[in-house]
């Protein structure tokens, strides 16, 4: 009688291992459920949006979902930058920051023509922003305003030009021998009705490159004629004043553009 051979057990991990087979089957069933759910979701979304799907029949939704899940697992998360809101009218008036902000917003929204205008506005604004920074630095250094040692608000004689010119030299606003021109409020003429405490301040004083240039603001000097109005504006007004004018013009242009944009 032939001897009955004992039942041979398969090594673990082989195809015939019942536990591994059950585990694979459970994973397959669960994955199929997830794939079918994802496929159905994509199918319903496509019906709403009219998106084209590579599934012609409802029976293909499981394959479709499996593809969608695989794509989801392999794709990297998309990091989107925070959208830049357009500045409101008040924000757009901030020197340099306003136009630069509008430039960034327009670039993000691919409105390149508007962005170019904003860039020009920011460039025009830069000198005024620089003047503001310089003014802040002078305030910190206590050289922005002349203030006499005693009775500052009562004694206008304490603000006489002799005191102020001397102080401006010590504060390094005017160099030794340099003429200071009363730019916006004259020292004489109608400026005589303005208190010294207002007109004899660094904001109103423009350092002259030489006495001849100072003289030509008021008279002809020898063979050199008196400056005409644009030349007087160029040579006889402080840098911050010209920068403020340029900034105002830039902001007016930007405001007009924004108005046109909103009225469309």
């Amino acid at each position: 009688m032939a001897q009955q051979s004992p039942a041979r057990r398969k090594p673990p991990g082989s195809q015939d291992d019942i536990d591994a087979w059950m585990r694979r089957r459970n994973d397959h069933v669960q994955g199929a459920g997830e794939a079918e759910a994802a496929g159905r979701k994509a199918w319903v979304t496509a019906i709403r949006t009219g998106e084209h799907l590579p599934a012609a029949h409802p029976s293909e939704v499981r394959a479709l979902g499996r593809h969608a899940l695989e794509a989801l697992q392999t794709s990297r998360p998309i990091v989107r930058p925070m959208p830049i809101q357009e500045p409101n009218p008040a924000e757009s008036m901030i020197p340099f920051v306003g136009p630069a902000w509008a430039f960034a917003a327009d670039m993000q929204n691919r409105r390149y023509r508007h962005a170019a205008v904003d860039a020009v506005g920011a460039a025009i604004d830069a000198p005024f922003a620089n003047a503001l920074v310089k003014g802040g630095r002078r305030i910190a250094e206590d050289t922005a305003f002349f203030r006499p040692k005693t009775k500052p608000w009562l004694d206008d004689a304490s603000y006489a030009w002799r005191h102020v010119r001397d102080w401006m030299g010590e504060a390094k606003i005017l160099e030794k021998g340099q003429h200071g021109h009363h730019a916006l409020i004259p020292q004489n003429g109608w400026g005589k009705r303005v208190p010294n405490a207002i007109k004899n301040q660094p904001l109103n004083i423009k350092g002259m490159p030489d006495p001849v240039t100072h003289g030509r603001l008021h008279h002809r000097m020898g063979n050199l004629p008196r400056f005409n109005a644009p030349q007087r504006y160029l040579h006889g007004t402080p840098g911050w004043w010209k920068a403020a004018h340029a900034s105002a013009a830039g902001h007016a242009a930007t405001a007009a553009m924004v108005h046109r944009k909103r009225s469309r």
Partner: protein
Amino acid sequence: MMLPPFHFPVLSIRCSVVPGAVPGEEHIDHFKNYWDLTHCRARDLENHALVGMLLFDSAGRCWRIESVQDLGIDATFWGWLFRMIGADSLLHRISCEFVEKGPVPLEALRERVCAAIAGNPDQWRDDEAIAGEDGPPQDEWEMLAALQDKVRQAQSVPQIITVLFDEGAA
């Protein structure tokens, strides 16, 4: 702190501390009372502007400041806040050591002041008058000479101060 018995106003002459100043370039100022003499700006302390200053009082006596001691910022909290927001510069209380130099004749003082004016025209120049803002342009040196003439005609220290600063106790 004992202060000399000054007769105010007091005329002062010190070396100029303007950047680029040459030796011998002098700055003229005046003090109206003891408070003025015991307070100064932080910049004056940094520049040691007061050391070596000559003081000429209204009685014709002269002192020299030998040393200056900083006694700190002179302000209450509210005073400090008020000054910081723009009413005035922060002032320091100071204690000076004065050395009496003896009486100075008025004639000598007038010439000393005239020499100081000539040595530091920046302090006395009226830029707009020279440029002709209000009338024909004036000559800088003629204006300085006119100022020196007025100083030479002054009969007292307060009058000199009035001529120089258009104020004082004359």
